[in-house]
């Protein structure tokens, strides 16, 4: 057992506890955006995928680096964009009907929840 592993395990356990504490306060209304936001956060695996490229020096390594980077980048970019798109729809008051069309296309900056 190395002390680095022990540190990693400590961080892991404490982060799970923090996660339980923070996430149990999220209202059911936001559970889909929450799951999508969690999805974007695990896109941090892109950092791991990038570091593959550091030691890759043969065809297999390059293939793994390529696929991992593509997967992780799709995860992180798609996750944040779709979460933002969903959260933009949550409004305290309904928007006027002439704004609906603009909102449906996702172009409008109006109507952000107060």
């Amino acid at each position: 057992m190395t002390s680095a592993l022990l540190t990693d395990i400590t961080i892991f356990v404490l982060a799970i506890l923090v996660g339980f504490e923070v996430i149990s306060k999220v209202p059911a209304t936001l559970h889909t955006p929450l799951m999508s936001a969690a999805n974007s956060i695990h896109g941090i695996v892109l950092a791991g995928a990038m570091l593959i490229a550091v030691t890759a020096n043969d065809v297999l390594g390059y293939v793994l680096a390529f696929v991992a980077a593509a997967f992780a980048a799709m995860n992180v970019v798609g996750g944040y964009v779709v979460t933002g798109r969903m959260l933009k729809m949550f409004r305290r008051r309904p928007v006027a009907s002439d704004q609906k069309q603009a909102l449906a296309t996702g172009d409008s900056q109006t109507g952000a929840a107060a």
Partner: protein
Amino acid sequence: MNTFDWAIQLVYVASATCFVLGLHLMNTPATARRGNQVSTGGMIVALLATFVLMIHIGGVTAAGWAVMIAGALIGAAAGLYTARTVQMTAMPQLVSVFNAVGGGAAALVAIHDYVSSVSAGHVAEVTTVTTFLDVVIGSVTFSGSIIAAGKLQGMINGAPITFPGSRFVNIAVAVIAVGASIYLITTPNVWVLVIVILAALAFGVTMVLPIGGADMPVVISLLNAFTGTAVAMAGFVINNWALIIAGALVGASGGILTKLMADAMNRSLRNIMIGGFGTGDTGAAAVAGPGGDVRSIAADDAAIQLAYAQKVIIVPGYGLAAAQAQHQVGELASVLEDRGIDVSYAIHPVAGRMPGHMNVLLAEANVPYPLLKEMDEINPEFPRTDVALVIGANDVINPAARRPGTAISGMPILDVDKAKSVIVIKRSMATGYAGIDNELYVDPKTSMFFADAKTALTELTAAVKTLVA
């Protein structure tokens, strides 16, 4: 540890703080967007720090840079395109696909680490345990999430798929994956790693295939927890705190949602995983009702009840999402509100196909979020309600859940039967997921409006408009 490593680790800690703050800000809809922005900021900083770290370590070949950047750009473009164009009803599939690629990327990190350690001739024992956890969990998540997405998209039959011996195959591949992993810890061999990967992929497929469509909210949550765990394991493998913390947060989130969903469906996780029972995806079956008289109603009469009510609660269920009728229900509600009627929505935790899915669909249909009420909040209001309008919900409103001895006993339900009158829009008298008759449908104060949710709501809105014109 030199100054540079210190700086990089501190940046990762700052990013992790942003992730936690971002999740914390999601505790109200009003601050949730800011939360997503904070989280995005943390992510950008972490990725920039990793980029700097790559340059600092050095030794990255030109081909290494090229494949990494090309992969990231292609992936980012694919992610951006799907995120921009996806329909809100297809959100569960998209979340599944993101789970799949996240888990797959985490598995690849460990696979690369193992392969390069073996070829360099050193495999530290502590690393290999987390390496195999990462490979196995990541691969299971990858194939399982693809199957789940296929079921949700309708490309794979949503009903539980089993074949003789499917349980045995499922257990066999699990044993092979774990056994081969243990063998590898003592004896480094890249080809045995291939067996581990294939067995884990097969396990993911055989795990999700027998699970019915209605259990998807639980399965997606569980796979989300798996992805988080896989990413945390990848963090152990490459000794990166950002991955460990982010993975642990997601694991916790997925774990909480899995428990909430399983509780709301009154099923244990074990029960769902064994699967093979019922499905919410089957179409309308023959009209075969429970004992007692069923009162059928047409759009005009239902419109009269709604137009002259003071308080209406709309209870949207799976059928509304399946019929994609969220815009129609939003329109009906705004017509009623224009008449000064108090309209709100009662959302059961498992309405829709993933946790909170119904809320997103209604938000998309321009329904303000203060009108979306959770079960505990809305239940006391039913006795003061003139009309409860149920759209495509079944088991979650069945009063039989309050009595012991039924398939849904103990399941938390919406107290629709306490409203003064009830209108149910449903295609037929077919039973819901639990396969039992709904006593509410034969209650004297209930009227059944037999139609597809979209058609029924369009007719109802037109009838109310005519009535009040």
